[in-house]
């Protein structure tokens, strides 16, 4: 089911309620989630991000070099080792020997590994994509058809063998197989489909918490990489206006409690003004939020959580509605 911005919610609802009657039908919904995750990756991977990845890789190389050098310094080395330290470790000369280890407590200061935010985000996004792709492969698998086809081929070959061999035993077996062919194929298909659905349910349910966590970790790393600066600023502004409205309300209550009519009137005016400004800041925050990666990642999390809830309790209409809403949100946040 494709959910577009133009699709009225009740139409989406009716179609999807019918579609969500069985767990196996979650394939289209999963497709929307996987597609959104793919588009998220594209949005993140700007040229600036690629440059950060390169910088991270260089920092990791430098770290590995520093660790190796520090490790050499922790040992008493033969004179030839100066060359090894000066040049790269991999260019080591055969005469460089460790003569003795420096005693505990006298090692050189420890070196901390560098922060590799861009590489981490890259890895996390790839992990999310790989997970959703695996679920998609499971959902869209043709296992039932493949097994049924192989089963039919095996039955046919055995039947031919029985005929050629003229064996009563094989012929008997073939007759039985032929008589129950349709039922057997149906049972094989059903069994495989049930196993596949059960595995899908199991994987989604057991991975939901991890999915939520990985997305949150990705959000945090993106924040520290400087993504969503507009969103953070709008949030701070909104929060500031919220504080002002809060203070204005307290001033109003205090003035009223003190019975100071003039001060109360003044405080009421200021409070009304603060509410108007708060509304403006909220509208501005919502616009920034809609454009943010944070909101896209939140929508992705919500869609997976709603899918897990629908699997957990397929008969609960609220879960189906939550799934629809999260998918609609996802479609809105990841426009074509």
């Amino acid at each position: 089911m494709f959910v577009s911005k133009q699709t009225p919610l009740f139409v989406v609802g009716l179609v999807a309620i019918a579609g969500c009657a069985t767990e196996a039908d979650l394939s289209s919904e999963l497709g929307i989630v996987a597609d959104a995750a793919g588009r998220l990756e594209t949005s993140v991977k700007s040229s600036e991000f690629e440059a950060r990845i390169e910088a991270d890789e260089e920092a990791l190389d430098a770290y590995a070099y520093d660790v190796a050098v520090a490790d050499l310094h922790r040992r008493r080395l033969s004179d030839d080792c100066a060359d090894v330290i000066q040049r790269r470790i991999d260019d080591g000369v055969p005469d460089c020997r460790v003569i003795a280890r420096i005693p505990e407590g006298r090692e050189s200061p420890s070196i901390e590994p560098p922060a590799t935010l861009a590489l981490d985000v890259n890895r996390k996004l790839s992990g999310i994509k790989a997970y959703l792709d695996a679920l998609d492969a499971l959902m869209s698998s043709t296992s039932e058809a493949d097994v049924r086809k192989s089963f039919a081929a095996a039955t046919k070959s055995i039947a031919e063998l029985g005929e050629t061999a003229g064996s009563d035993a094989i012929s008997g077996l073939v007759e039985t197989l032929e008589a129950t062919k349709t039922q057997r194929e149906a049972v094989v298909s059903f069994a495989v489909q049930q196993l596949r659905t059960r595995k899908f349910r199991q994987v989604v349910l057991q991975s939901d918490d991890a999915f939520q966590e990985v997305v949150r970790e990705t959000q945090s790393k993106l924040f520290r990489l400087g993504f969503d600066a507009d969103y953070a600023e709008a949030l701070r502004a909104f929060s500031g206006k919220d504080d002002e409205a809060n203070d204005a309300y307290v001033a109003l209550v205090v003035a009223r409690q003190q019975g100071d009519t003039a001060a109360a009137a003044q405080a009421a005016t200021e409070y009304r003004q603060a509410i108007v400004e708060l509304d403006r800041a909220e509208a501005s925050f919502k616009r920034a939020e809609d454009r943010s990666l944070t909101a896209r990642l939140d929508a992705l999390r919500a869609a997976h959580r709603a899918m897990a809830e629908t699997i957990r309790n397929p008969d609960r209409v609220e879960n189906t509605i939550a799934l629809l809403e999260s998918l609609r949100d996802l479609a809105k946040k990841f426009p074509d």
Partner: protein
Amino acid sequence: MTAITKAAEGKFTSLFTTIRRALDQVEQRLDEAVDAANTDDIIALATARKTLKEQLFQIRELEIDYQASAKGPSEAERALARGADEAKGFLRSMKKVSDTLDSVAKIASTLTRLLRVFP
């Protein structure tokens, strides 16, 4: 444990402790807010709300720091990868079932051919 890992872990633990302390304070402010609401003390409620919001902001910032400072794949990433592996593993098993049935078909058909050649 190497000195390098110890240093990184120390920084991480300290951040974690700060988050835990901030959460304790939130709990305390929440209690104050509930008390204020129960006694219809609007001013105390407004103050508690403001403080609570500031602390939640602080916790979110700390959480971001905590998650951003983690190095290497997290436990959650590993769990997600396990989920993906399970899904793929299932498909591999089903492929094996099909392959086994295909082998049965091939063996039967080879035997048939042999019987036709050597009746």
